[in-house]
């Protein structure tokens, strides 16, 4: 018994004879009857019903939409240890927040000044013990964050893309975290957690610079005071996203640093002119010292002990996008201690200008070709350049000798 196949092109096998006076009313079998040129039954009631339905639909939609997009300034979630600070929505005028206890905002009805007509009411029976990832996300107003004594856990992505953030101050009684001149560290100073993206503004105020110069106008003194950072000798890990989007030009890493996590040094930049930004990171240096360097301010290379170019000996892990989009970086040397390089770790550290390649044009690797095969490398970890309309990764210089400081 075979099933008949569908053929949608079959013609009708019958001719319909519709009398002249039934052309507007003839009903095809299986379809609704035509309704042409006739008044609708209960038209008034139907019109009213339709109008009411639309009105209710629009009103409900507006009501629920408005409720959905509304955010409290501070949002918390209770957990086993206390409260988790889960989200902050700036009113547009809050420049400093303190994360210690569950807080509500209260407005002063008498004060018309929107920048100062609010106060924070804290409930000291409800301590904040953790800060969720992306609790502050792309905030452009907050300049200072104060961390309370009972905050035990801060996610590395808690203060993501806070463009105006200058300082993170930690209560000295906090058992897990501390700050070094506004930069967030773990208490044991082994992990750099967050170098605020606008920390340079704080440093400018501190050192007496009135404005931020464009890249070409920065003096050597300005670069030393504002755009150079010495990662303390105790630090073993540059945390996830820890120094991304800062405007640093020179970074001194300690020998003893083991891990550079995902996006730790991602896209460092500074103003090129009034219209645009340009990559800032001019170089990465490493230093080896027996002295206890806990000051992040740069005075001289001599004060740091033995200083050499690029990544420190002893480094083991380079996360994905760890150093990517730093086109001014001229040189990379990967020490033999490295065992893992994440995908796109050095992506876009190269560009072409006037037919000439600039930036990281060659990847210098301490290990020989055989030894380097044991290093776990992610996709596209090297930068690429245009090659016959396609892209080609830069070459690897195996068994390379580290370049000397000029």
């Amino acid at each position, binding site marked *: 018994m075979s099933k008949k196949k*569908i053929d*949608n092109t079959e013609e009708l096998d019958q001719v319909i004879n519709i009398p002249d006076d039934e052309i507007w009313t*003839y009903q095809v079998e299986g379809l609704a009857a035509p309704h042409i040129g006739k008044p609708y039954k209960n038209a008034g009631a139907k019109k009213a019903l339709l109008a009411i339905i639309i009105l209710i639909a629009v009103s409900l*939609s507006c009501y629920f939409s408005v409720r959905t*997009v509304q955010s409290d300034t501070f949002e918390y979630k209770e957990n086993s240890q206390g409260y988790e600070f889960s989200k902050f929505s700036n009113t547009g005028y809050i420049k400093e927040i303190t994360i210690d206890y569950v807080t509500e905002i209260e*407005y002063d009805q008498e004060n018309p000044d929107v920048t100062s007509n609010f106060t924070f009411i804290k409930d000291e029976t409800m301590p904040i013990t953790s800060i969720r990832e992306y609790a502050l996300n792309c905030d452009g107003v907050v300049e200072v964050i104060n961390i309370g004594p009972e905050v035990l856990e801060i996610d590395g992505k808690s203060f993501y893309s806070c463009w105006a953030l200058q300082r993170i101050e930690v209560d000295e009684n906090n058992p897990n975290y501390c700050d070094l001149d506004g930069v967030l560290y773990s208490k044991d100073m082994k992990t750099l957690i967050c170098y605020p993206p606008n920390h340079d503004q704080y440093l400018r105020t501190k050192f007496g610079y009135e404005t931020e110069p464009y890249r070409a106008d920065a003096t050597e003194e300005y670069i030393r005071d504002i755009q150079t950072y010495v990662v303390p000798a105790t630090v073993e890990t540059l945390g996830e996203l820890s120094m991304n989007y800062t405007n640093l030009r020179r970074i001194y890493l300690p020998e003893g640093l083991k891990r550079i996590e995902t996006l730790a040094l991602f896209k460092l930049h500074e103003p090129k002119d009034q219209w645009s930004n340009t990559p800032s990171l001019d170089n990465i240096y490493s230093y080896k010292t027996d002295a206890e360097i806990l000051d992040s301010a740069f005075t001289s290379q001599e004060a740091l002990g033995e200083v050499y170019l690029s990544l420190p000996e002893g480094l083991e892990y380079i996360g994905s996008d760890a150093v990517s989009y730093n086109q001014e970086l001229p040189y990379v040397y990967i020490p033999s201690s490295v065992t893992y390089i994440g995908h796109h770790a050095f992506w876009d550290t190269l560009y072409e200008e006037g037919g000439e390649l600039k930036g990281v044009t060659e990847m210098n690797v301490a290990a020989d070709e055989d030894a380097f095969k044991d290093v776990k490398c992610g996709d596209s970890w090297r930068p690429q350049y245009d090659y016959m309309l396609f892209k080609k990764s830069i070459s690897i210089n195996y068994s390379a000798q580290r370049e000397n400081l000029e």
Partner: protein
Amino acid sequence: MSNNSGGSLMGKVKGLATEIKTHWNTPAEGKYVPYKEYKDIFIAVGSNYAGSKILEYIGFWASCYLIMHHYKLPYLTFSVIGIINMPLGYITALIWWFVCDNLGFLPKKTERKIYAVYIAMALFGISTIVFDYTSLFNPTSPFITYLNGLEGMNATACFKTFGTHFLYSGWVGARNIFWRKKLIPKFGRYKYSLYSDVIPKCIMVVLIGWLPVYNIPDVATRVWVANLLFATYNVFGFGNVLETCTKSISPNLQERIFVRSYPIKMSHFAHSIIAIILPVFVGMLRYEWADINLYRYIIPITFIAFAVFTMFFAGRIKERIPQPPIEKKVEIKFWDGLFGVLRNKYLLINTVVGLIDSLGNGMLPFVTILYLYTFRLSGLPYSLIVALVSFAGTPPDFLSPYFLKRFSYKQIMIFYQLSRAIGNAAIAAAIWFCGDNLSLCGTICIVVLFFMEMTKTVPTTAGHDMNVRIGDYQMYLSGERLESFAGIFGWFTGPITSFVGLIIPIFLLKFGFNSNWEVLFVDASRRSIIAIPIIVDVIGFALMTIPYLFWDYDSKKQNMVMEVLKRRAEVTQKKAEEEGVSTDGVYTG
């Protein structure tokens, strides 16, 4: 035998050449379009289409590269602006509908009233931009503090955004009446907008790239100024109107199909070439897609070049459909039209499908993320992958007639929804389980995209065909196609879809996606931000099969409907002839 067929082929080619030469300037008997106009159509439609496609790089939406890399506006802000604009949209839609259905030709008194409304709206809009209306309110009132708490906005920005929509609606509405009246008699109902809009559009395309609005440091100010800039940009159109115009290029049905099959399809090559070349130029920029020079030079220069070609050849394309004078257009009563479309079961089913589809509203464009944030493509490799995936849909197009003959619309659409569900589930699984292995994850995604593109063509063709049939069915039901009135379904679904469309952006915000797209470089974030919304979409596609189970409009019913329509045409023509009324434009099939 092969010599014969070769000779016959040569003969055909020679015959075609002679035919083209003979009728280069004057059409053959029974035809209306000379071959010279085919050439004009090829260039004009090709330029118009390519130009309109280039404008897809500019838009006030989160995935526009200008917004993504330069304006960096919070993702949820676009939803907030949508909510602010929604109530006014309902009111302006009513007026717009009334004006458009009458092609801009209104009784003098009505015209004056509508002008007054539009001008008042525009003036109110300007006043909100010039003055800060928040000063009228207590700054600590719950209303103002609520507005200040909206993502990416503050009270001032909300008022200015609200006013911008008034300005935009008033300005566009008044222009609509003015230019339709002035230009439609001269250029026809499709082309006229090119003549009124092309110069301001070119200026706006240049300004969009060069005005440094994206450097405004305060995000709320940046939002409302950008909204104003893009609203002004949107006042002027450059749609693919010349292609629409060719739908009425000839009263001869065969000739019309021929024009649409050859010169029109060939004209789209211009866009295909640009789609390959443009990313190559972008790849040469220092910051590639993030380079502002894309919007300062590449897009304006390319667009203006195509705009010039379009305008040069637009005048050579003619509308030739017999139609009554515009002023004598039949007027459809509002409520009759509305009740008429509400009786159309198939429009209702499509509406339900659209509603379920809104589950995926607010999702980030997965393909953009795959190309730019997973593969980091640019230049020729980008062009080639995009072209490869797009090309996947072309070969099945040749098989469309077979599938349309062999399978019912219900079967095709259920297959389509299920194939989307399976494909998206595979993509979600790839991102979830091997998101940090870019080669593997990316390859799986590309293969699935290829498969999904392949299986999209036939359902798309079936959908276009069914839309025409639904129009026929509407004509059987109501005596008119009521295409404008079908928009009423949007009035019911709009409020729901706009609310549902908020769910995913709120979710994305929780997982770190806001104004900075570079969070997508974090593997773990990509998993939450992309995979979970895709899973929601998978559920939507699976649910969308249900309404199609009730689709029972088959070819037999369509044939019956066509018989009724033909019979109506015959009877009315006969009656008209008896009454001595003109029967121009009557087509009895």
